[in-house]
């Protein structure tokens, strides 16, 4: 490849007979094409999937080995892995939605979003495509995690395949709605480091001051009070209800409701923020 350029001719009228119609694809095509673009990046660079699986795998190993024995007594649901795994599904899903926000900021830096802005397409399509691609990636990750848990740690919940499938759906729903919250934060903050710290600061207390790893009764008093108002507790409990075939009560319903609200609010602010000039 030389850097020399001969004089290329730009005349090519006959080759694009439909150029008059190239004034912007319809919204459906925009979303499909843009989602495909984001997914392609994942397929081309599967390291992203592998690396983001490492953290939950390590947690799964550590927690099941460290707490497993100690907590057996206070858990009525059989082995600790069966207790832990529904929580890991939810927290991994939330971690993935944080990564969505970070990814959006990376894209903004990349410059390619600048080009999208000068195209006759909707900015909502760009965001929706990003969230869908990440949702798909998360779905695959959670399936891999579930298989690993079943094969390596003997995860076999009472809810069976159907219960596990519903818990998987619930985790994806929570992840997708929080993706919009993090996309909203990302499109206002626009700095990767800030985004990472916001996520870190929000995630860790939420994760540990909840029923994710330890039953509420086993937490110190003040922490169990915090955990009782922590929305993550409810998401995790709902996931457990489904996979462990516990009586499914208002937990699942309120998780669905809360997700819908987060989704709408997040989407509103994400699109508003994203439209602001770079």
């Amino acid at each position: 490849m030389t850097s020399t350029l001969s004089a290329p001719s730009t005349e090519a009228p006959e080759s694009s007979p439909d150029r008059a119609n190239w004034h912007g694809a319809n919204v459906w095509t925009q979303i499909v094409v843009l989602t495909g673009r984001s997914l392609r990046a994942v397929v081309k660079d599967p390291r992203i999937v592998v690396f983001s699986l490492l953290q939950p795998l390590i947690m799964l190993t550590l927690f099941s080995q460290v707490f497993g024995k100690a907590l057996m007594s206070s858990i009525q649901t059989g082995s600790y892995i069966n207790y832990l795994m529904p929580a890991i599904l939810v927290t991994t899903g939330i971690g993935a939605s944080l990564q969505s926000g970070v990814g959006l900021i990376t894209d903004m830096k990349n410059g390619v979003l600048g080009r999208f802005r000068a195209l006759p397409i909707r900015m909502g399509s760009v965001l929706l495509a990003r969230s869908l691609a990440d949702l798909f990636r998360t779905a695959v990750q959670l399936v891999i995690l579930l298989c690993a848990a079943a094969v390596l740690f003997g995860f076999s919940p009472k809810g069976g395949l159907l219960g596990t499938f519903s818990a998987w759906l619930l985790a994806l729903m929570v992840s997708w709605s929080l993706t919009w919250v993090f996309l909203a934060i990302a499109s206002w903050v626009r700095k990767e480091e800030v985004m990472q710290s916001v996520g870190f600061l929000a995630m860790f207390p939420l994760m540990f001051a909840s029923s994710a790893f330890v039953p509420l009764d086993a937490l110190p008093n003040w922490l169990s009070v915090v955990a009782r108002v922590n929305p993550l507790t409810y998401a995790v409990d709902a996931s457990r209800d489904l996979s462990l075939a516990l009586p499914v009560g208002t937990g699942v319903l309120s998780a669905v409701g809360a997700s819908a609200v987060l989704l709408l609010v997040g989407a509103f602010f994400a699109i508003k923020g994203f439209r602001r000039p770079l």
Partner: protein
Amino acid sequence: MARPPIEVENVTKDFGKFKALDDVSLRVPEGNVLGLLGHNGAGKTTLVNILSTLSPPTGGTARIAGYDVVRQSRQVCARIGLTGQFAAVDEQLSGLDNLVLIARLLGAGKRAAKQRAEELLTLFELTEAAKRPARTYSGGMRRRLDLAASLVGHPDVIFLDEPTTGLDPTSRMGLWQIVENLVDDGTTVLLTTQYLDEADRLADSITVLSSGKVVASGTAEELKAEVGQRTATATLADPAEAPRALEALGRAGLSPVHDEQRHAVTAPVNASHELAVVVRALDEAGIEVSGLGLGEPTLDDVYLNLAHHASESAA
């Protein structure tokens, strides 16, 4: 043919208290190239961003092909191509995929998109690298891919923001050639640059921007006639001698300007033998010179000259 493809009327842009653009007006007729000339920070990118709908003006109106950039941004987007100052390509995707993506977003079918992408890759001599991720491209290749991406939709109007800044001379000339071919096809181009020679080579008319204001506009010939074809620059051994040097050159019939930054005096000269006039005049006045050069006019000369005229008319 109703309206010119690019119309800018009294556009201002404020960033807080800072005025990045101050009452800028210009028009570019169909098929013409406007060179927007200005130093770093003059407001070139700000204007390009407004015209390509990326940011709204604080005041004034701008229209592309008759469509308002604020109220009819979608129609504007459908008719423009933008090659920003920094290459806007997807690093992860191959050159081919980048172009196919843009074509699909513009509404091309799968086959038409691929065909258009391949056509452009051939045109920009990127066929060999078509399947490689764009992050492996050299600076020049990236620029070409970026330019190709902005041409996918056969835009009527193209914005090129400093298209050759940071390119090696060969790639630079290659890019000039591409722009010239575009213009032959009737595309209207607004090109920003810091280099007078680039504007001179490509532009039908030039607008000089300084601190957000239009300070001069006209054809390259008109500007150069004002600036002088070439300039002689004498660097002074003792900067304090500047007033005497200016006086000596003035007596010799030249119109010298003091270039304080370079400790030099500069004077437009018409032919190289006038260089001798400079040497003689300074020698006779006993002024020691540490360097002497003959240069093609640059943007600096335009600015110096404008400043010169301003001070003359004030006096």
